[in-house]
């Protein structure tokens, strides 16, 4: 079969394959019949029969074997059934024996239990008896202890027993014991308390005992704190004493050289020692307090929440106390910094280090003992405010210093001016001319040096102060508590140095000048002596202010920028862009102040002009008012007052020239002078006359225009009597020229220039002349005298004002015209005669 299978197709469903499941005997047979030969068919048949036979055999053996096995299995099961039955019987027997054992056991137990209980009872009674004995002995023991002052032992024993006593309090005998115990303990407590209360300095032991006795910790803590206060205060008091001593010594030091031997400590040392003694003892105390009230666990059992609460309260008391102590101490330190001796410490570095030391130490130490954020915040605030206070003290000190220097200088200046001015002002005779010359020379030198010296000193003072203040930032770590160094530096620079020092200083200067030297503040109710400050001083000061404004302030700004690493910005806008923390500073305030400086300088200058103009005018005015112009002789001389005026003007010119010259605006003036071509040729002479001063005063009358009254005025004065109808016409003519002349304004665009100043003075003078003339009536010779005087003035005045003498001509013409109008018999003097008279003098 295998072979056929191997030979035939491997297909499984081959119906011809005898071994395949799809075998179909019909097809197989038909196929065989169809394909095979007879022989092979026979062979096949034989083979098949043989195969069938073997297969049958095999099947028979298999069935047999299985049958045998089944038979043996039934046998085994039957055997097992038999065995189980015997086992069950045995088990039943075991159970009965076990239960009998159990009952026996129970019986034994019951018998033994009684005796065991008795033994236990006996032992407990024994223990109780022991305790009772202890308790009964307790009162006497405690008393003994109390009598022996062994309070600690007593307290300890009591605390041990008290619990039991409390428990059995309802039993009368125990209650009695407890009462007697508490009595003794109360005695002890009272004793301790009185001791505690009486003691100046409470010992921590006593407090501990009292605490154990259940004294309220609140009270004790308060008391404890309270009792420690005097000790601390004593320390503080002692330091204060030291401070006072130091102060006294510093006061006496100047007079008594001996006291210098025991030189008081410097500020740093003082801070150190005071800190050591005070804060150290404070801290020691805090330590003990901490042990007593906060770290110990209460022996008296109470709910943990209550305990925590009391601890919290104790902490709170401590903090309060610490805050108080610290504020007292800081107050003292404040006093120290404010004090005359230490506050005036010249060494800024030392001062700064002292502040630094104090702040650093206290900020390091204090945080150890403070528990709540609140208290730390408070202390920090205190320290911060102290820092600002110390800085402010310093600023005040610098302010005072600068003020003193400045006032000293002004006093000095005044003194030196009074030495000069009488000499220069009292010159009348010509003999002294030479001497006067020298004097003015001296004044000239002095004036500029005065200004320079004062300016230098002031600038240096401020610069030095900047420098000193910058030490606040260098090499100190006091900013430790503020944390952010940059922020502090900026705040310091902006708030304290810039706003608090520099701007305030400038404002004070302004206020000073305004108050002292100008009468511009119209609200001033009191009548002041307006001549109190000499005019030269005004001039010098105005120059000083001007220079300070123009040179010192920018310089100081750069110094400030360098020292404090800030940039002074021109406008606010930039700063806002950069943000608040940028290194820039707004300049607008400074600009405003600078403007004020300029205004003040101008005010002072005005004041100067007024006072000089006033003195000159007074001279002129007296000379006109006292003279009888109706009855005067024919003029032969220039009146001496005119000469005097010219002399004084020359002197003023020199004064002013020293401080204000026209260089910066010479170009502007040049263009002006060219526009007035009429007088242009005179500019050549400026040098010779102006430079030559008093000695070189020669009249240039020959080439000069002679000032004559305006023709209209003369017409009017001379022409006809009441009958003439020319009145209104001439009036028109008289006023006609005014249309083309600008109005006289004395202070119009006053500039910081010699010409401007001088022309203002001259304007004032001539205006006075004019007004005085109008109040008088003149005869012919009176008019002529005025003519002579005016022309004399004319010859000199223009030299003071460079080339711009248009207004002088106008005013002089106006004066002569007015005189002619006020003249009864207006006959003018010949121009040539005027020239001769003017030159003749």
């Amino acid at each position, binding site marked *: 079969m295998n072979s056929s299978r191997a030979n035939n197709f491997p297909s499984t469903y081959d119906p011809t394959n005898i071994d395949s499941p799809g075998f179909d005997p019909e097809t197989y047979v038909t196929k065989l019949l169809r394909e095979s030969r007879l022989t092979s068919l026979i062979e096949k048949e034989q083979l098949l029969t043989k195969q069938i036979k073997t297969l049958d055999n095999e099947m028979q053996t298999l069935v047999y074997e299985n049958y045998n096995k089944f038979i043996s299995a039934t046998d085994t099961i039957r055997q097992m059934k038999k065995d189980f039955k015997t086992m069950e019987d045995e088990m039943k027997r075991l159970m009965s024996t076990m239960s009998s054992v159990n009952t026996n056991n129970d019986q034994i137990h019951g018998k033994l239990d009684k005796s065991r209980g008795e033994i236990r009872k006996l032992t407990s009674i024994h223990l109780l008896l022991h305790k009772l004995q202890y308790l009964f002995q307790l009162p006497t023991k405690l008393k003994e202890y109390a009598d022996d002052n062994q309070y600690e032992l007593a307290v300890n024993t009591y605390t041990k027993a008290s619990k039991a006593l409390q428990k059995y309090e309802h039993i009368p005998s125990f209650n009695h014991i407890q009462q007697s115990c508490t009595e003794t303990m109360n005695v002890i407590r009272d004793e301790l308390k009185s001791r505690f209360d009486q003691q100046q300095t409470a010992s921590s032991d006593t407090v501990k005992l009292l605490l154990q006795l259940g004294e309220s910790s609140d009270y004790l803590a308060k008391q404890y704190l309270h009792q420690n206060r005097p000790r601390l205060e004593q320390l503080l008091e002692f330091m204060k004493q030291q401070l006072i001593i130091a102060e006294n010594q510093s006061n006496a030091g100047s007079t008594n050289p001996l006291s210098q031997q025991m030189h008081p400590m410097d500020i740093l040392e003082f801070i150190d020692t005071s800190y050591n003694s005070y804060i150290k003892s404070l801290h020691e105390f805090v330590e003990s307090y901490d042990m007593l009230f906060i770290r110990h666990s209460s022996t008296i059992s109470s709910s943990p929440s209550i305990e925590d609460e009391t601890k919290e309260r104790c902490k709170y008391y401590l903090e309060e106390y610490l805050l108080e102590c610290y504020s007292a101490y800081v107050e003292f330190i404040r006093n120290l910094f404010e004090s005359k001796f230490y506050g005036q410490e010249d060494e800024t570095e030392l001062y700064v280090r002292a502040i630094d030391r104090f702040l650093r130490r206290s900020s390091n130490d204090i945080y150890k003992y403070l528990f709540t954020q609140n208290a730390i915040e408070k202390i920090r605030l205190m320290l911060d405010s102290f820092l600002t206070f110390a800085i402010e003290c310093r600023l005040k000190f610098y302010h005072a210093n600068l003020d003193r220097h400045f006032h000293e200088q002004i006093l000095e200046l005044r003194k030196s001016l009074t030495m000069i001015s009488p000499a220069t002002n009292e010159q009348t005779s010509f003999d002294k001319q030479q001497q006067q010359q020298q004097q003015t020379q001296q004044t000239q030198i002095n004036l500029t040096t005065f200004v320079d010296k004062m300016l230098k000193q002031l600038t240096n003072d401020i610069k030095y102060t900047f420098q000193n203040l910058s030490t606040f930032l260098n090499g100190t770590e006091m900013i430790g508590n503020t944390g952010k160094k940059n922020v502090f530096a900026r705040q310091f620079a902006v708030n304290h140095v810039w706003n608090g020092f520099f701007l305030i200083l400038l404002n004070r200067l302004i206020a000073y000048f305004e108050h002292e030297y100008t009468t*511009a503040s119209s609200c001033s109710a009191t009548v002041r002596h307006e001549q109190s400050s000499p005019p030269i001083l005004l001039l010098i000061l105005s120059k000083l202010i001007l220079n300070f404004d123009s040179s010192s302030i920018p310089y100081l700004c750069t110094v400030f920028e360098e020292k404090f690493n800030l940039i002074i910005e021109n406008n606010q806008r930039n700063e806002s862009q950069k943000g608040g923390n940028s290194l820039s500073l707004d300049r607008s305030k400074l600009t405003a102040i600078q403007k004020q400086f300029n205004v003040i300088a101008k005010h002072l200058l005005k004041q100067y002009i007024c006072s000089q103009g006033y003195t000159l005018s007074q001279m002129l005015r007296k000379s006109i008012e006292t003279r009888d112009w109706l009855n005067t002789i024919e003029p032969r001389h220039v009146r001496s007052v005119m000469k005097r005026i010219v002399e004084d003007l020359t002197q003023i010119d020199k004064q002013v020239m020293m401080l204000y010259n026209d260089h910066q605006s010479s170009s502007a003036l040049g263009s002006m002078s060219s526009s007035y071509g009429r007088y242009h040729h005179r500019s050549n002479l400026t040098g010779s006359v102006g430079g030559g001063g008093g000695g070189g005063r020669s009249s240039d009358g020959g080439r000069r225009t002679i000032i004559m009254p305006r023709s209209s005025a003369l017409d009017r004065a001379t022409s006809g009597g009441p*009958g003439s109808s020319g009145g209104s016409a001439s009036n028109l003519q008289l006023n006609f020229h005014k249309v083309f002349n600008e109005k006289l304004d004395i202070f119009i665009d006053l500039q910081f220039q010699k010409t401007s100043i001088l022309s203002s003075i001259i304007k004032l003078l001539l205006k006075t002349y004019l007004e005085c003339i109008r109040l008088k009536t003149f005869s012919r010779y009176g008019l002529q005298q005025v003519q002579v005087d005016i022309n004399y003035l004319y010859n000199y005045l223009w030299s003071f004002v460079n080339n711009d003498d248009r207004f002088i001509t106008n005013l002089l013409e106006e004066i002569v015209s007015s005189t002619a109008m006020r003249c009864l018999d207006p006959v003018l003097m010949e121009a040539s005669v005027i020239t001769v008279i003017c030159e003749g003098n």
Partner: protein
Amino acid sequence: MVDDDEAPLIYGVEFQARALCAVSGVPDDDTVRFLVGTQSIKFENQIHFLEYEEEAGLLNKSIYSHRAGEIWRMASSPTDHRRFATIYQNIQDSNIVSKCTVWQIPFDSNTEEGNSPTIDASTNQLHQPLRKRFDLNVPNTNIIDVEWETNGERIASISETNIYIWNVEQPDTPSISSTGAIDSKSSAIHKLSCCRWNPHMSTNQLATTLGPHIRGWDLRSMKPSFSIDNAHPPCVRDIDYNPNRQYHLMTCGDDCRVKFWDVRKTNECLKILTDHSHWVWSARYNRFHDQLIVTSSSDTRVILFNIASLSSEPYGSLNTSEDVKEETEELVNEDRLICVFDEHEESVYSAQWASNDPWLLASLSYDGRLILNRVPKNEKFQILLRCPT
């Protein structure tokens, strides 16, 4: 803002002039009148009687000749608008003589004013002369200033050293009722130059200037009542009493300042105005609103101030609400310069308020230009309504 009616009215006098006064004494009339006196040595001096017609904006003038001399000062009678006093100078034996006379305008100007322009146009000579009422002269003394008492019963005049009080109740027969003299020590140095009646204290007080000082006189005893020393060195030019606050007065002078004083406390002044750049020649309180002050100066400017802080009128109003009131107070409280009238080309020696119009003022400069100005409208309303515009 300048309205048309606020534009100044300018009137020219053909001669130089210093004397200007407002005419009062016509109670039932609201025509504003001023008198101007000329100062000329050569020509016949004139008195210009000016009437301002507010509606037409016209200034009617009548000119009268003042032959006695050049006029330095004038004072109009408070009771009779036709009467006024002049201080005038003329030359006698090459000496200046200064006199005082009370004049009367010869006819009622209202009826005859139409004639005056024709007379004026034809010839200068035909100005009608003034009618002289009486002289107020004392032999051998120069009268410097004259001032009527507010009720017109008395006239004060001063010479350089003396004060004369004239009783003029009897028509045309003046008599000196009392005289006073400054002590010889101060008269050697300074002269009296200006006098002014105190409108308060039953007009028994007269203030005079004495060089840089001010002296007050009690007219009952003719003794000095108060003195302010060195009020305006070197010379005080004018005094005016506050019409409503009896102890306040205002002075001005050659130190270019205007000062306010309380005569009970003469060692310090209440306020100083420093806006003028030359001598201040006159300073006048407005009779109706005493915070308004006009000053004139030889710097050619006339300045109008509002000095509310020293005014008798209270700040703020009672019927305005709180916030408005505060604003008002801020505004009114502030003393300030209202405006500068700079139309003059010459020194302005006199500026006067109109006697019956609280908002009109006249100023006269040396070249004969008279300018009528008004208080700016918003200022006027502020004062009237007491609220900010």
